[in-house]
């Protein structure tokens, strides 16, 4: 079954994929720094009239829950917020973009959060991307 990205259903399927990923369970085990929000910038040309976000409540290698929200204000509770446009997220979800390399290029932006902490979890971030590639995804564009 495929899920439209980004939707609440996709977010739930992503949570399942993260929890099924042994690599994430291992590398994310020491993560106790709070939820991470992924924000997709609005792009009305592809039917995304406002920013949407997925808040992943990740803790000790497990994703305990997810919230699909609209607007930047709704993600501010997350200690870590990563923002990019739709095309970048798509490339990431398809495994064509490395998350850390993309941050170095400014394609993904950590707009909130402690970067040194994030860098200590490079492999864990990569495993989050690997998890996303396991979700059967239907893209908007």
């Amino acid at each position, binding site marked *: 079954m495929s899920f439209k990205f980004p939707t609440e259903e996709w977010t739930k399927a992503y949570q399942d994929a993260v929890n099924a990923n042994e690599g994430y369970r291992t590398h994310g085990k020491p993560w106790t720094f709070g939820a991470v929000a992924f924000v997709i910038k609005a792009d009305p040309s592809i039917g995304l009239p406002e920013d949407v976000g997925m808040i992943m409540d990740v803790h000790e290698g497990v994703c305990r829950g997810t919230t699909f929200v609209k607007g930047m204000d709704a993600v501010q509770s997350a200690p870590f917020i990563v923002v990019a446009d739709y095309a970048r997220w798509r490339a990431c979800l398809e495994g064509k973009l490395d998350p*850390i*390399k993309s*941050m*170095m*290029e*400014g*394609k993904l932006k*950590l707009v909130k959060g*402690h*970067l*040194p*902490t994030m*860098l*200590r979890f*490079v492999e864990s971030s990569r495993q989050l991307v690997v998890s996303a590639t396991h979700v059967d995804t239907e893209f908007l564009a």
Partner: protein
Amino acid sequence: MEPAIELAPGAEDHGFAPMLATLLRQNLDDHEDKRATAMRMRGRVAMVITDLGMSVTLEFVPFAVRVHAGIVGIPDVTVRAGSDHIMKMSMLELGRFGLPDPRGAVAKELAAAEKAGAIKYFGALANIPLMLRLTRVMSVNA
């Protein structure tokens, strides 16, 4: 007293320069010893990220560290490496006195990469204190 971390004009739109400035700022905020180290640093360090085709220059001046997009001025040290290795440098394990711990996994990986020619340092031998201090302020490890 801590050095100001400044993005040089034009560096805001660069991919890596703002990230590096954030990394330095948060690292110095977290660690008093790294702040003291940064205050003692003078000179320019250029980083060329070969696979991304981009470069940055860190300029250490009294009371400030300026992050420039591209190579600006004449660097005292130039590091040329791929993005993976550049990021690994920020994960280098530190040992006694904040010096790199050669027994660490990242230290070994970087040493092997240097031996294989994947990382090149220019001017490092003539500026060992600058290099060691750079390692210390950039490392996300205590």
